[in-house]
């Protein structure tokens, strides 16, 4: 604090005068406090809204999926016989080329055996 910050005698007299003769403040009207408290809006939850964002998004996602599935069911094969036939065809189709290929070229045992057989 420097000397200029100190209140002068004049300042002190002025402040004393102001305090002594400051205007009387009108009191609050009767019932003001009750009216004020009644007008307070309800307090929202203290937790922040984004705390609910992730669980909310998951719930909405699940609900959407369930709804979509219920309106667009997965296509079903007509009966189990068709399904079995389909599996058989797929299985054989998948194996046959591999068996042929192995016997012809790729099986090392067969490749070793071939020259021996030919000399006999």
């Amino acid at each position, binding site marked *: 604090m420097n000397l200029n*910050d100190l209140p002068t005698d004049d300042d002190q007299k002025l*402040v004393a*005068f*102001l*305090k002594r003769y400051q205007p009387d403040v*009108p009191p609050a009207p009767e019932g003001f406090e009750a009216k004020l*408290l009644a*007008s307070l809006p309800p*307090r929202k939850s*203290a937790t922040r809204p984004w705390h609910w964002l992730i669980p909310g998004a998951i719930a909405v996602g699940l609900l959407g999926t369930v709804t979509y599935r219920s309106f667009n069911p997965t296509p079903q094969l007509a009966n189990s016989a068709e399904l079995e036939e389909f599996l058989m065809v797929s299985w054989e189709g998948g194996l046959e080329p591999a068996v042929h290929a192995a016997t012809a070229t790729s099986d090392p045992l067969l490749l070793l055996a071939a020259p021996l057989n030919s000399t006999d």
Partner: protein
Amino acid sequence: MVALENKVETPIKELVARCQQGDRTAFQQLYRHHERKVRATLYQLCGTQNLDDLVQDVFLRAWRGLPKLREPAYFSTWLYRIAWNVATDRRRQLAKQPKTQSHVFNTDPNEATPSLAETLSRPQDSPDVMALHYQGLVKRGLAHLTQDHRAVVVLHDLQDMPQKDIAQVLKIPVGTVKSRLFHGRKALKAFLVQEGVTL
């Protein structure tokens, strides 16, 4: 801040914490603790017109803003800042209206109080009448100041708020508070001397 808070620091902190959880009873206690000072400050800044509405606005804003208050110990300073904002909004609102009268204290500064000679010439002359006359002069003197000067004089000289706290309430540097206090007092002194008061 220190002068305002230390005496009741713990209760205020507790009350603020409870208010933040939505406890209206705690808010009622905070209201009772601060209402007079808030009302006095608003009255000295804005006058009587709509005073109740302004006080209500301050406490409603406080209730809404309490969950965001991170330092409960600074509640008083924070509340004064809300009061200052409400007073400033009020001043802007009035500035848009046609000027038919002086809004501070809802009086015409030239007609707010009778002159000293008029006062003393009345039959009921007494020390009380002199006090009323001086009260009228202080009213008019405060109304005579700019809003910025009046705020600093009211908070410092009438509400006994430290300059550091005033700087926080008004969001200005402490040096500006000192400067406004100096000029505000000077203008007030000049006004009172002109009205015949000897200081």
